[in-house]
């Protein structure tokens, strides 16, 4: 996090992948079209990235599942009433020092809270799953878009 409280997940300039893994690693997926096929690709990219980190298969499965639910939420809800390009961003960071993994999924659409009278059997599982699979999940809705930040402490 920088001083404004905004996660700063840019690529590490001049670093090699091996150096990244030694001290930490970042993954940045920008302008991912918010459609079902493209978020499947983003899910595979995240899975590949996790595969070279010392996080274990169980944690990796939880991270991939939670991140997918955040992306699926964007596809299904965020741009329903918005014109313009529907995209999302995924920024992931693993810090070796404190063994903390953070993934943020950001869109420029509109956050929709789960209605209180929703059918709990067939709706609303996505956000519940995000909270259950992660150590901490924060939904930050704003006029310009929504960021879902998920953290795993290992």
């Amino acid at each position, binding site marked *: 996090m920088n001083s404004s409280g905004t996660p700063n997940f840019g690529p590490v300039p001049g670093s090699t992948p091996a150096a990244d893994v030694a001290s930490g690693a970042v993954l940045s997926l920008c302008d991912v079209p918010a459609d*079902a096929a493209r978020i499947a690709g983003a*899910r595979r990219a995240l899975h590949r990235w996790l595969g070279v980190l010392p996080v274990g298969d169980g944690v990796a*499965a939880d991270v991939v599942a939670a991140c*997918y639910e955040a992306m*699926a939420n964007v*596809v*299904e809800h965020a741009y329903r009433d918005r014109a313009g390009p529907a995209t999302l961003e995924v920024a992931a960071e693993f810090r070796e020092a404190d063994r903390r993994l953070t993934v943020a999924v950001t869109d420029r659409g509109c956050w929709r809270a789960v209605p209180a009278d929703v059918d709990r059997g067939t709706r609303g*599982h996505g956000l519940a*799953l995000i909270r259950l699979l992660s150590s901490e999940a924060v939904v930050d809705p704003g006029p310009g878009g929504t960021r879902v930040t998920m953290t795993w402490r290992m």
Partner: protein
Amino acid sequence: MGLAASTVGSVTVLSVHGDVDLSSAPLLEEYAFRLLDDEPGSLVVDLTDVQFLASTGMALLVELSRRTAGRAGFAVVANGTATARPLELLGLCEMFTVRASLDEALTDLGGERARCRE
């Protein structure tokens, strides 16, 4: 995602392979609903070979359990981190039967049928 249907006695087994996500779940839904329309017996959804299960697929399992309630048995076969764990975390194991193997699920449903005949 791949789908295959087979019957064991009066039980229809819907075997799912690959990923159940936003792209593939509508196909699974259409196929499962058709099976329910055509086959009056019990339904087992076998997720043994599913590597990824999104919540949209879990919601479909809830819907299938509701549609079979009162007319036939329903069970899901799931094991491992990608399927059994999220079903358990969300408490869906309390809404329908989840078994670790197809044999266990078939034994359960066979037992139910035997009791019904008594």
